[in-house]
């Protein structure tokens, strides 16, 4: 379920690092909690985002959710697919529905985040207490 080459945050974002590029998205757990996604607001190309800070918004029918940057960098691409079909976030959150790609300003930041096994344990604990 959760790709082993991604890193994860407690706010349910993921980042995939390859070289100095980071691809950022939200997790399957997050899309499930949100329900039907209807709108995605992302920063423009060139915007700087900072680890732990809000950089975008995902809205479902029932709720608005702020998205926190797992790592820092400069946006090089926002996923155009999501403005036409935001519901892709419900069906392919770890793949086609990535949110932004960034040029990492500090590629080592990602190593501080949870790996797939740790994230899986984190959400299992949340589900057990819910």
């Amino acid at each position, binding site marked *: 379920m959760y790709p082993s080459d991604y890193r994860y945050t407690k706010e349910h974002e993921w980042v995939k690092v390859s070289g100095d590029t980071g691809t950022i998205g939200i997790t399957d757990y997050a899309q499930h909690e949100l*329900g*039907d996604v209807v709108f995605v607001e992302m920063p423009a190309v060139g915007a700087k985002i900072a680890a732990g800070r809000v950089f975008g918004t995902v809205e479902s*029918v*029932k709720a*608005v959710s702020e998205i926190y940057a797992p790592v820092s960098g400069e946006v090089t691409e926002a996923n155009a697919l999501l403005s036409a079909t935001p519901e892709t976030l419900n069906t392919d959150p770890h793949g086609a529905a990535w949110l932004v790609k960034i040029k990492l300003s500090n590629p080592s930041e990602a190593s501080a985040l949870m790996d797939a096994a740790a994230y899986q344990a984190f959400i299992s604990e949340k589900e057990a207490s819910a």
Partner: protein
Amino acid sequence: MVDFGGWDMPVEYSGIVAEHMATRTAAGLFDVSHMGEIEVRGPHALQLVQHVSCNDASKLVVGQAHYSGLMTERGTFVDDLLVHKISDTHYFLCVNASNQDQDFEHIRAHNGVGAQIENAGARYSQLAIQGPKALGILQRFSTTPLDSIRYYYFAFGKVDGVDCMIARTGYTGEDGFEIYFAPEHSEKLWSALLDAGSGHGLLPCGLGARNTLRLEASMCLYGHEIDDTTTPWEAGLGWICKTAKGDFLGRDALIRQKEKGVDRILVGFEMQDRLIARDGCVVSIGGSPAGRVTSGSPAPFLKKNVGMAYVPTASKAPGTEISIGVRANQAPARIVPMPFYKRAK
């Protein structure tokens, strides 16, 4: 599950959009057992109902229901409710879950005529089956000819062998029924209706779809469009406010406000871009703050983003351009006529 007035209730089963669309096109099944019931009995039952509510219950015939408001002396809402006339000496009130106890206390405090009042919520479960296929699905379980129950009327009959009050009422903008029965039959009736309906496109629906359906149909929700600071005139509910019926709580204040005219009024709006207004967002007109959104959401059937808001009465005309503060944006919107959605008859 979320806590809703002390009840653990699902926001969604299969997804708000799927549940909403099923209710518009086939049927939706809602467990609304949280709703409160208050029964008023005795030779002076009508007098008490007339005293505490703003609609004219003397116009009801046995077996008929209407929408009404429980009023404060200021003419504002203690709650909104459905009043069912079971007999000349027995009225059955369906009220909001979270207001049930305060409604009961309010009615009791104003019972100057010696009517018997029962806070009866614990004696009833309620299921709502709504949508174009609701009648057909429910009819399979009942010998009562359901199509003979007209809109906003009710009958006593059996559903799957269980004694029920079967009312042709709802909170979705669709045809359908709300059935009241003893709580021990809840699981059996829920399962039976779900099983029978699933082959006809029926889906179980949670609080999320209940909210989007009522908003799309422009129905008020207590705590949003109406509360103890809003009057029926302001909320566009003048049709339930019968000041000519004689004295009742709030009548003087309501007559004064009607003569003077309301300063603000509830309107519907449609967003003009993709942003979604939510409850509490500030409405601006001509660049100045002018009101607040009371409910806002995507409307899944209409595929628009809509909402309701209070605006100054002078700005109420459909077509008026407004803007709504959504995060850092001033999102353009336009006042439109309500209801947003009206089913084809």
